[in-house]
């Protein structure tokens, strides 16, 4: 064990953790929004809208995240029309490509989580709202959504942790996130175990934090 290397690499890896956290939080926010929209589309009675939302989640859950990033980062640049459009400012940056891929990916998983939470709400709650004379809108926002949030918290916590691990793929499109920097240090020093221990501990610490945050929220919102 080379403790000097571990001490020296720690600040570098900690700096890279900021990139990881930025990627994670931005894609989670966009993904949550996407997931919410697609969950509602999934519940729609129109078969086309329904199928579209199902296709989206099937496509993104059935293929590896790595393929999705590569399609967006390497593939989209090939389309002449995109290259000349204003979108190119965003799509030429690996950072934004990674965020788009992560958001779409976590959006697909989140939509499934929210959909199943919305579907498992007991009919009695909705009927109670109706018999109180509440409008559909109020029933949705004041009864269904709060219950669904509580219901989906454990599964969403898992999704956050999966996404934290997913951000490591940003290193494949030249981003220097925690895994990217770890790989760089490994390939320059050839000390994989030491770097793995430090980088792995940072990841584990983040997982631990997320796990406890979700536990706290679960307790807070339990009824």
């Amino acid at each position: 064990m080379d403790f000097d290397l571990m001490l020296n690499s720690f600040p570098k890896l900690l700096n890279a953790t900021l990139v990881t956290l930025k990627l994670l939080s931005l894609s989670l926010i966009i993904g949550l929004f996407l997931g919410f929209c697609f969950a509602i589309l999934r519940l729609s009675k129109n078969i086309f809208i329904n199928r579209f939302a199902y296709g989206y989640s099937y496509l993104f859950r059935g293929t590896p995240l790595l393929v999705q990033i590569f399609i967006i980062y390497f593939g989209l640049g090939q389309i002449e029309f995109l290259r000349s459009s204003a979108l190119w400012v965003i799509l030429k940056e690996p950072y934004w490509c990674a965020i788009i891929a992560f958001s779409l990916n976590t959006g697909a998983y989140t939509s499934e989580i929210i959909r199943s939470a919305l579907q498992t709400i007991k009919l009695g709650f909705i009927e109670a709202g109706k018999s109180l004379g509440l409008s559909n809108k109020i029933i949705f926002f004041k009864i269904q959504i709060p219950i669904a949030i509580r219901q989906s918290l454990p599964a969403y916590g898992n999704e956050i942790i999966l996404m934290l691990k997913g951000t490591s793929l940003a290193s494949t499109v030249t981003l220097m996130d925690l895994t990217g920097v770890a790989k760089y240090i490994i390939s320059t020093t050839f000390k994989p175990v030491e770097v793995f221990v430090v980088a792995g501990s940072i990841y584990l610490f983040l997982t631990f934090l997320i796990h406890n945050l979700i536990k706290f929220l679960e307790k807070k919102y339990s009824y």
Partner: protein
Amino acid sequence: MSLLSFGNSGWGDELFFATLMTLAVSLTAMIIGFIFALIFTPLKLSKNKFLNIIANSYTTVIRGVPELLVIYLFFFGGSGAVMFVASIFGYNEYIEINAFITGSFAIGIISGAYSTEVFRGAIQSIDKGQFEASQVLGLKKPIHFLKVILPQMLRLAIPNLSNVWQITLKDTSLISVTGLVEIMRQSYIAAGSTRDPLFFYSFAALLYLLLTFLSMKLINKLEIKYNRGF
């Protein structure tokens, strides 16, 4: 379409063999994972605190650290570790491990952590009476496990194992960073030499979808088989 033709002019045969490679790595990794699960599930369920801690740290660490990082550890550290073990036995030559073994081992250890959790959950949800009944009947330990616990456990574990299989299948795409020519690596090569990344990566996505779709069909059949009588 000519890009996908078989033979020297197209990438069809290359991609076909790459798909077989992906399947081979996934299956090997899944089997290695089962072996790990067979070792760690008893440790997890044991009453010994120390053994519990070992098994728990295995599943927690592996499930909390990105797959890519684990693969880098094996890729850069694998041959070093093997050489170290070999040097204890007096063998000091350079040993290079091939990418297939490193990759399947790395993915196998990851899928083993998930399988361990699945088996633990399945065994724990078997009714206590089943354990007591086979004790009362005086069944020997191996028979008790093979004839009483295993069939019931499999029924409960199959839906979750199919999730593990999906995760494993998708994780194999990460081995491409070590240079093993599976779907992802082959698409990368093809995309590089034809300058048509959009087509090849989309095709790779399609291949993965096909693999997950077909394996789901197969697993559903298994599920029905193990669910008869329930």
